[in-house]
């Protein structure tokens, strides 16, 4: 979809009557701003967009974005979004999740949605800690990270969402940083425009519980793929970037065009499922099978 000349809305049109309850300085504010900016830039209306939220500080954004919204369960927003998209592929469907949400409880759903190329944009607030439950370790916490639930340090290696999405035949794999709203906005715009599953993992400082992966740390560690001349059509190069530890690349790792899940369902090739009449297309013919 091309950008409208005069934006129909301002970002504040996507505010609700309630203001977020996040800690001052929380990275979630940046993601919130970028999401609203992206909706403006995309020319979306509150009624043609659905955002599905998981449970966490991240999911609490459900109260603060003026679109159709479904605040589901911890770890389960992705299948809800897939169901919405199959029911009405005319809608823009976006998921907001936390890293515990998305890579802990919901890891399986994430990978299956990636391989199905469901046309949804998956924004994961990656703060490497559990915010809402007050600071336990998360699947993306670095090895050795000490928290209330891992006082001796995490034993496992962290989940690498970028490489997982690439390994599951992901068609749009990106990473942003909550402190760079403009850059993140652009990634969300591209992700929504992409026909298929778009992962946007977002470094999101939790100022209250994560004293290591702070704004300062991310400002020092992140580098932009665009500025490095990275070619997003090169999967091998994307995988190499995904495993870097010296620096943390942000931007578009990989993009490929492949039909989205709903585009491969002939039943809804012409009209979205929700617009089909309720009366069965055929009934007697089906009954005859039993005669």
């Amino acid at each position: 979809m091309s950008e409208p000349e005069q934006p129909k809305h301002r970002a504040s049109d996507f505010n609700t009557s309630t203001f977020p309850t996040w800690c001052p300085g929380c990275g979630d504010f940046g993601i919130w701003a970028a999401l609203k900016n992206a909706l403006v830039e995309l020319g979306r209306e509150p009624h043609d967009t659905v955002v599905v939220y998981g449970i966490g500080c991240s999911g609490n954004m459900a109260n603060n974005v003026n679109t159709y919204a479904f605040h589901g369960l911890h770890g389960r927003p992705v299948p809800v979004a897939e169901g919405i998209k199959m029911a009405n592929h005319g809608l823009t469907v976006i998921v907001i999740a936390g890293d515990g949400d998305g890579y802990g409880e919901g890891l399986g759903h994430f990978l299956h949605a990636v391989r199905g190329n469901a046309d949804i944009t998956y924004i994961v607030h990656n703060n490497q800690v559990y915010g809402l439950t007050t600071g336990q370790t998360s699947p993306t916490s670095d090895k050795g990270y000490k928290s209330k639930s891992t006082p001796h340090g995490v034993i496992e290696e962290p989940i690498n969402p970028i490489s997982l999405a690439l390994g599951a035949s992901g068609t749009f794999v990106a990473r942003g940083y909550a402190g760079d709203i403009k850059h993140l906005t652009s990634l969300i715009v591209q992700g929504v425009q992409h026909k298929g599953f778009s992962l946007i993992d977002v470094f999101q400082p939790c100022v209250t519980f994560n004293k290591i992966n702070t704004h300062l740390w991310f400002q020092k560690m992140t580098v932009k793929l665009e500025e490095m001349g990275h070619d997003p059509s090169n999967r091998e190069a994307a995988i190499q970037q995904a495993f870097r530890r010296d620096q943390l690349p942000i931007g578009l790792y990989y993009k490929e065009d492949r039909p989205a899940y709903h585009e491969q369902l002939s039943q809804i090739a012409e009209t979205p499922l929700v617009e089909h009449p309720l009366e069965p297309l055929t009934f007697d013919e089906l009954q005859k099978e039993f005669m």
Partner: protein
Amino acid sequence: MKTTFTWKIGGEAGFGIKVSCMMFVRLCVRMGLHIFDYSEYPSLIRGGHNTYQVTVSPDEVFAELHEVDYLVALNEETVRLHLGELTKGASIIYDPDVVHLDAAEFQQKEISLIGVPLKKIVKEVGGPDIMRNMVAIGATIALLCAELTEFEELIAEQFAKKGETIIGQNVDVVRRGYAYVQEKHKRECTHVLTKQEVKSKRMALTVNDAISLGAVAAGCKFYAAYPMTPASSVLETLARWDTKAGIVVKHAEDEISVINMALGASFAGVRSMIGTSGGGFSLMVETLGLAGITETPLVVLNSQRPGPATGLPTWSGQGDLRFVMHAAQDDFPRIVLAPGDVDEAFALTRDAFRLAEKYHVPVIILSDKFLSESQKSTEPFDLGDENIARESMLTQEQIGALTEKYKRYALTESGVSPRTIPGMPGGVHLANSDEHDEYGFTDETSEMRTAQHAKRMKKLEAIAKEIPAQKMYGPESADLTLIAWGSTKGTVREAMRILERENIHINFLHLSHLFPFPVDQVKRVMQNAKRTLLLEGNAAAQLGGLIQQFTLTVPDETFLKYDGRPFFPREVVAKVKEIMSS
């Protein structure tokens, strides 16, 4: 000469028993006869003992009779295991080259041995081993003094896709089996298979088939599932019909995804259903509550099998009633339905979609392996000519006429707050898993929590008024009143038939609506009955507990069975006699 008989075939898994039996059933139904079939098989692909049986009669059959008149024994084990089920005068059809039986022993028991060289005949035609079943069916048709033409037509039709050679071979072996019996086992017919005049063609279908048809008829557009016996055939049937019926069918990665996808589709305005058995239902539980608090319609099929955990995957039981009634934390309104036969399954599935949409609640349909996999003959279902009405949903005009911002969870008198669906301007809202205010925004105040929770629970009052009178069978007054739910209906009705022939008259209350519980009617029946007998397929008398809770009465007698097998009519007859003579 009798016209009602039971035919059974047994052998190892992988003997291709099912396909050929389905053809025998189809033959009987096409001839205007009624049937009820039943199969037993272990959770194995090869080996293990499999049986399939069908009761055939000119009159409606409510459940399979466990007294066998014709036994096709593909191995010796079949004879050994089912000898006790044979009636006086029964016939065993077997291959003397494979199964060795002592003629004297059977003569004493008044059982005829019908040796037919099944294997040899198949070899003569050059067909595969599984064609032995077809030879046996040919032999059966000869014993039943019927002609072959009908069956040959059926073979040509059913194997049309497989080509002339396969059709030819099958017809050939059936003819040879038939001729062999006519020649070598010439005798008086004990039972006959004769064509009956019928008004319209009948169907033979399982409750899962009826539920699939009911879903299509109700405007279900989205079905998600993860395969699990005995619910899988709904997934497979609807998937086969997807383009024809315009329905999207999704085999998702797990049951948690299944229910969340369906909830998403329903939130987006599409009538949605999911199907599973107890294990999969267990995984869905948290999301069932999400349907409750977000007030999203959903139809859930739980076809029970004995548990807990993997339990007996291919067997039957009624152990999930309490589970589905209470599944998920805290209270929220839900509806639990338990059809007793294919006609009820069709009607209740249609109604489940209406109720789910009208009240924005999950509706759970309970079946079990016995119902889900047993075919029964019935008349074709009638759709009527009324269009399906959308309920409890605002139209775009109604939204336009709102004088204030739309409230998804408006505190209404009935507890139902009309919904909007994504895409509708002016209807934007948050469907919230957190407790919320009228708009859907998170709200943890004591006042709003109490108001919203009470609003949701209030819906149960209106739903309770929609529960129809539960079916009562038999005379108004009887010395014994039997009470049962769901799948035991047909067995009890069949047992009542046997009892009536012996001049024993009981009556029977069958519950197809378990929650909201039909309190007044059950109370009345319990109070007026001279003596009550509760019959259930679980160990804890789960319905018995409900009766006690809601009516403060206790059934006089209970008959519980939880061995993985359904109740058989004879068992019910014996129990009734035992009680009535004590």
